[in-house]
């Protein structure tokens, strides 16, 4: 009996959010009397497999073959199902990334198992796994109990604290890969990795975002917001108004129709705090607003605020942090 955790890889590197999940699985596994198994699929998984051991997996199941280098649902789901069967899994957990979400859903549907998509918490009650998630864009919370023998969940990044690696004593087993390249219908003809060095919004501990408040001089405005972000090692976010106006690409958008984030610190510069923006960042631990309008709704959710022109307040804050960090 096992809790099986998929360790997502991006360009051959394990996605760090998966370690949060693996660590949580250890706690759940102890309560359920299940071991913790990590599943790695890729072309070269050795380093990630060692990491999975260090982060506490009792067993690592590795499916490695050149044609598995890139995520493709068909072979990945087949291998995940194979691993579920082999480990006699009571739970299959993934990181709620784009790929983790679709892998969890496909495995769950194929095995007619219950799914908690975008779960924010997991615990054990009466010897069974229970998940928490929100619906109505964060406005209603629900608890999901599983009626199926396999429980599947995709778990939002940063739902659990990041553990520290240890020595670990788990073992690594190879899964035999039954699919060949010829069996796979999807072919990837071009692959472009995202800009390296950019902090991703969903993983970020700190996010600095800009909104329509930069309108007076959008280029300068986002330059200032970007400088504050880099002084703090933060990811750069934006409101939809800023994205729609073409100040910054969509991938930076936070909110209902953008990314959902939960950093420790979210600094909103020139953002009014519309409901749809709050839907994406309202769960940040500490919200700071810089806005020249003291009545802007964002101040109802912010813990700290500066009522001033962002064109002077943001560089002043950057200068302060540069002095201290």
């Amino acid at each position, binding site marked *: 009996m096992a809790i099986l955790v998929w360790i997502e890889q991006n360009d051959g590197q394990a996605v760090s959010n998966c370690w949060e999940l693996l660590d949580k699985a250890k706690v759940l596994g102890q309560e359920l009397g299940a071991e913790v198994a990590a599943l790695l699929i890729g072309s070269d998984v050795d380093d990630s497999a060692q990491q999975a051991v260090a982060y506490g997996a009792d067993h690592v199941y590795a499916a490695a073959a050149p044609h598995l280098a890139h995520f493709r649902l*068909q072979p990945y789901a087949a291998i995940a199902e194979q691993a579920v069967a082999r480990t006699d899994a009571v739970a299959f957990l993934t990181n709620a990334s784009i790929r983790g979400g679709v892998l969890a859903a496909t495995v769950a549907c194929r095995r007619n198992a219950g799914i908690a998509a975008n779960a924010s918490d997991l615990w054990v009650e009466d010897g069974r796994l229970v998940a928490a*998630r929100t619906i109505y864009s*964060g406005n209603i*919370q629900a608890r*999901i109990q*599983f009626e199926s023998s396999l429980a599947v969940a995709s778990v939002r990044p940063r739902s659990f604290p990041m553990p520290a690696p240890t020595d670990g004593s788990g073992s690594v087993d190879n899964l035999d890969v039954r699919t060949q390249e010829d069996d796979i219908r999807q*072919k990837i003809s071009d692959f472009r990795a995202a800009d390296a060095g950019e902090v991703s919004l969903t993983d970020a501990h700190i996010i600095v975002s800009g909104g329509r408040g930069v309108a007076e001089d959008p280029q300068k405005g986002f330059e200032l917001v970007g400088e504050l972000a880099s002084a703090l090692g933060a990811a750069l976010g934006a409101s939809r108004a800023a994205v729609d106006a073409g100040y910054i690409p969509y991938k930076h958008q936070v909110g209902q129709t953008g990314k959902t984030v939960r950093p420790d610190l979210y600094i909103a510069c020139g953002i009014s705090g519309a409901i749809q923006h709050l839907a994406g960042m309202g769960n940040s631990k500490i919200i700071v607003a810089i806005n020249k309008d*003291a009545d802007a709704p964002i101040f109802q959710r912010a813990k*700290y605020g500066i009522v001033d022109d962002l064109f002077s307040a943001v560089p002043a804050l950057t200068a302060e942090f540069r002095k201290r960090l």
Partner: protein
Amino acid sequence: MNVAVLIKQTPDTAELPKVTVAEAQSGELQATMVINPWDEFAVEEAIDLSDRFSCDTTAISLGREGETDALKHALAMGVDSALHVDESVVEGGDEWATAEALAAAVRKVDGGEDVEIVLAGKMSVDGNSGVIYAGVACKLGWDLLVNVTRIVDIVDGTLIAEQAFEGGQETVEVPLPVVISVAKEINEPRYPSFMGIRKASRAAIPTLGREDLEFPLSRTTRWTDLNKPETEEVQVRIFEGASVEEKAAQLADALMAERVI
């Protein structure tokens, strides 16, 4: 090669915070109901495909009895026909029941022969799961592409598309049939035209009910303890300094003390 597009009727996003637990439990919402904003991109893409490859488009929505405004919106935008699936067919069921019903509806379009592309939105603003299209692909036994930012071409029954994910972007080729969930970068949804609205208001929208769809009802989860998350009452602290530098210094002090930096 025809196209079906899955759309859901969901509360206006500005009214989502007003949804109560009782409403969420009963499904009887006070909120203004509109087409799920993510699904507008799927509808636009369906219309675009019909222009490019001269195919027929059908919008399918599973919802409560008479809940057809989203379908009318899709018709007004320009899809050729609409099909409503009565929610009672999945009453008490889970996501896989919904997926099964939608897959069955896809098979019923035009006698079930010609639909080779099913488009869906990225996520519903009420369900927030992003799993229904995965279920539909699974029930149909078709391939699935998610977060598609561009449909490049369809050549000899093979669809070429660009997909985005957290780590980058890729071009992928897949033989039809295929289920595709679209990302918002894919297009700019049009507004319904006056003529479109008139046409939609006159259109007959057939409904599939229990007599039309038969399948075992999947029920793998139980949702309990629905509640409104408490929004923590935070009293904002506004720094009142003589200069902006002073305010910035006070804020920096506070954030260092919080140990978030």
